[in-house]
């Protein structure tokens, strides 16, 4: 009985310790923002519906990072069109915006950062594929692009349409 209790205690103590490296691993995987983004259909006004494929050695981590990657994609990559979908340019038209505002985006994309406010995964859309040693996980994500654009305009990262007038 004592052995079982001791084992349970060891496991309970080691869980938070394991979460640290796992999160670090997740951040490392996504710091490079290795993902693919494509249009997933016409969204309602003020939103983009995108499909994001994220990569990680752990499927659950890749799934967790889809929202972050979707927001990153809408800001810096944009996506192609086709089959009734309209291609969209990135919100940040300046290619150097990410490096020029490194501090802002570091905290914006940090775990639990502001990016979370602008993206939500559409339930039941997860697809998991094993590619070599890692998992490629796809999710349809709804990005609230109008709110995101307003936040970036307010932070001075991008210019508003009426700025300068």
């Amino acid at each position: 009985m004592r052995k079982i209790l001791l084992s349970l205690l060891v496991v309970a103590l080691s869980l938070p310790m394991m979460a640290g490296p796992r999160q670090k691993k997740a951040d490392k995987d996504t710091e490079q923002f290795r993902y693919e983004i494509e249009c997933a259909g016409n969204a309602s006004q003020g939103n983009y519906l995108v499909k994001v494929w994220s990569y990680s050695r752990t499927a659950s981590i890749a799934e967790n990072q889809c929202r972050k990657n979707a927001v990153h994609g809408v800001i810096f990559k944009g996506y192609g069109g086709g089959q009734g979908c309209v291609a969209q340019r990135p919100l940040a038209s300046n290619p150097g915006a990410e490096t020029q505002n490194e501090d802002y985006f570091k905290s914006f994309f940090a775990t639990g950062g502001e990016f979370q406010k602008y993206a939500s995964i559409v339930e039941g859309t997860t697809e998991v594929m094993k590619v070599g040693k890692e998992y490629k996980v796809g999710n349809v994500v709804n990005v609230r692009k109008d709110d995101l654009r307003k936040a970036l305009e307010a932070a001075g990262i991008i210019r508003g349409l009426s700025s300068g007038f």
Partner: protein
Amino acid sequence: MKKYLLTIVLMCAALAASAQIKKPELMVIPSDVWCISNGYYTEIDNLGATTKVPNYKQALQENMGLKLAIAKINDLMAERQFPLQSLEQTIKNLEQRRMEDNLTTSKAGNELAESPLDEVARTAKCDIILELSWDVKKVGPKNSLSYILEARDAYTSKSIGAASGTGAPSISADVDVLLEEAIVSNMDNFNNRLMDHFTEMQTIGREISLDIKVFANNPAGIDLETEFGDDELIDIINNWLQVNTIQGRFSMPYASENVANFTQVRIPVYDERGRAIDANGFAKQLSKYLRKEPYNIPTKVLVKGLGRAVIILGEK
């Protein structure tokens, strides 16, 4: 005394800092091809040739889809702090003003004085025209909608940008739903083009067109070939433009002794005192230069909007 001076300096600094480029007015109108293919036009006899002219009032009164499209575009533009001028309201205001002017008389029974030019200037005008057209294609039971929204500079007629595309075919969605979907999906791309245009304008100046004309038989006996020293007047105007446009950017596609057309004239958005200027302000600077010694040419500047100005030489 020092306090007063400091206050004046601070006020001037605040004024200079708050000087902003004049905001262009935008208006959505249905394109000629849409109006004519949907039967909203009037036929006029133009020197023996019949010409079809779009009838915007009829289109707005009879086509709900058009009203919906304009309202949706206005909604999306207002969201970007760029509300549009309403075509319907502009037409109504013009009619209202015309009616009021017709009924206005003095105690002695005299009507309002209005030159033909004033009446032309009263017509609906804006700086950037957004031309909208769409067409529904039927393939079997499915409907698909092709959509074009094109922005054009009202003065230079240059295309600023366009968003176009054909939506996914649908069996269930009606035309209004497809149209709304097309506008919502294409508006960001369209606004990106508009943004590029505004950024370019703020970087390399506003593009305007400038026409120089001469009053026939003017008492000063001036035309564009009149010589001042070794130079003809047209050369003097060319030299002035070379100095006062940004990087000397302008072209002169046509010039004769009576008319000179300058296009692609890039003018600074602020004058030397930091005040925002447009085509009218720029033309007034040239006009002042020509009125001074040694030229002493009487000039008249006609206001045509932010991007076009006309200077008439020889009389006020």
